[in-house]
């Protein structure tokens, strides 16, 4: 099973993702954070210390861009700093998950090496299939 965390300030969007992930049956456990700050304090409270869920595949992290306080990009930058001292393999597969198709956001996502996919809302079964394909490509059965 693939552990997953959804970081989004909109409750309904988290609900949709949770339902889609659970429908595929490939993700467990599924955690949530309502903004970047609470994700960091829950899962990466300080540099080098991680309480990210562990499974037989790296954790899927779906991050919204527009959130109060830290936005998605700011959160990922800070996350990168805190992850630096954690030994490989990388414990996370990070995907942006947003309703923005603004080219500036897409460019920023492409430039951030931690981000491996840019998904548009709403979450669909097709998007979940895409995520699973990505995991297969990385050698995880899901």
């Amino acid at each position, binding site marked *: 099973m693939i552990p997953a965390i959804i970081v989004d300030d909109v409750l309904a*969007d988290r*609900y949709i993702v949770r339902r889609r992930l659970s429908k595929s049956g490939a993700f467990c456990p599924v955690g949530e954070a309502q903004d970047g700050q609470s994700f960091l304090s829950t899962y990466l409270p300080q540099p080098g210390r991680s309480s990210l869920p562990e499974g037989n595949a790296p954790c899927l992290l779906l991050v919204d861009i527009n959130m*109060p306080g830290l936005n998605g990009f700011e959160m990922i930058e800070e996350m990168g700093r805190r992850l630096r001292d954690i030994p490989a393999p990388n414990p996370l597969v990070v995907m942006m998950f947003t*309703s923005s198709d*603004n080219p500036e956001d897409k460019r920023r996502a492409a430039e951030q090496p931690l981000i491996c996919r840019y998904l548009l*809302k*709403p979450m669909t079964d097709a998007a979940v299939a895409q995520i699973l394909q990505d995991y297969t490509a990385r050698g995880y059965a899901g």
Partner: protein
Amino acid sequence: MAASDLPALPGATRATLPLYPALAAADEDTMLQQYRMVLDLSPTPLLLCRPDGVIAMANDHLTTMFRHRPGSLDGLRIDLLVPEAARQHHPAQREAFLHRPAKRRMGAGRDLFGLTADGHLLPVEIGLEPLPVGPETWILATVLDISERKNGERRLRSALDSSASAMMLIDAAGRITLVNSAACTLAGAPEDDLLGRSVETFLPPALRKAHAVYRKSFGAEAEARAMGANRDLTFCRPDGTEVPVEIALTPIDGPDGTQVMATIVDITERLAHEAALNDRNEVLTQLNEELTQFAYSASHDLKAPLATIAGLLELALEDLDAGAEEDGRHAISEALQSARRNAAKVEAVLALARTGQQAEPPRDVALEPAIRGIWDDLTGSQSDPPVLTIQCLGDPVFRTNPQALLTVLENLLSNACRFRDPGKPDHWVNIRLDAGPNGLSVVVSDNGPGIAPEHREEVFSMFRTFATEGGHGLGLALVHKHLRRLGGTIRLESSPEGTDFHVFLPPPPVQKEPS
């Protein structure tokens, strides 16, 4: 014109010179007859004057030039042809010439005039040559009418004066030899003060030495060009004031060598105009930036809820198909809530876009009743609203744009009411008003959780929301826009104990009474 450039006197001078020794010995009458013949044949106006100032003979060209009848000047005094002003010194000057007789130009450097029979002053150029007649030295005078040349100069002068640009002709030594009236205006000094002055005196003192060097190198290149490429040029008036200028340099060849015509344009107004344009451009750039931000934020933030609604409805459909009525109902009701919130947000965006479009006349607003009304609307549906206190220190009414003031108050009160600190036992909102002739100041205070220092700058941006309680992130942007339009200000003080918003509104501009 150098003396050697004087018009040749073929009959009178060149031909007769070799005859001088012979003539000196010859009979005076014969000699005078020969002179008469030479004068009459000459195409140049000539006269022969005795040492005592009596005209021995004048040719027809000269007599007609002075408007006398041919032959009528012979035997008359030369003073007749000399303007009154010069007449007094004329005999002494003649004596001086005879004392050291040599071919020369008369009155070098001065404007010479001859007096005509009808009393006009004729601009002339006069060449003098001693001529031995017996034991005496007589004077042969060549007189050229230069009125045409003077007219030409005058025309050139009026052409220069009609130019809006200041023009200064500078000689090789850097002295000003000609100025037009625009140059006098620019320098703030009359022509006489400018002529002969060194051009360097009009430069900023620090540049004078370098300019002398530039000037010499320009003399060497001598090609028309703009001066001081890429540098700001300054013209220093004698009174010390400085004028930003543009200068073009054109070499002009003349009899006294190459001079340089400097055409100087005062660009004070143009610079002011450019500065005004730049200012306007900056404002427009800022507005454009706002608009870009607005378009981007609006498209994203209005689209996000639609994506949510679509996602929820897809789930609902699947749930209903699968017979999971409870889940379907939940998804639909979530979608409905999203839709409602979004509708309110669209209204807010439109309100923001409309701000400033309609010019509403200022009206007296009764402050306390207005606040009570807003508060009632805001808290009507709440079971446990914060406690509101109102302090009205100044006038009870304030004249302003009522819609703008109400929008400002409504948004500040709505925030104060919405953001409560759950860790505090009771919640309150205080509003302090002080209206007077100098304006209205409002302080809206609450004992909410406060705004983090890093967010205080950004709270006035559109769609920026830092709270997790919801809200469309437009309220303070709207407040800000209204206040800016009315010339007001807003600032905030915040701590974990609560937040104070300080608003100031100036009185409305005085309306002009229709005359």
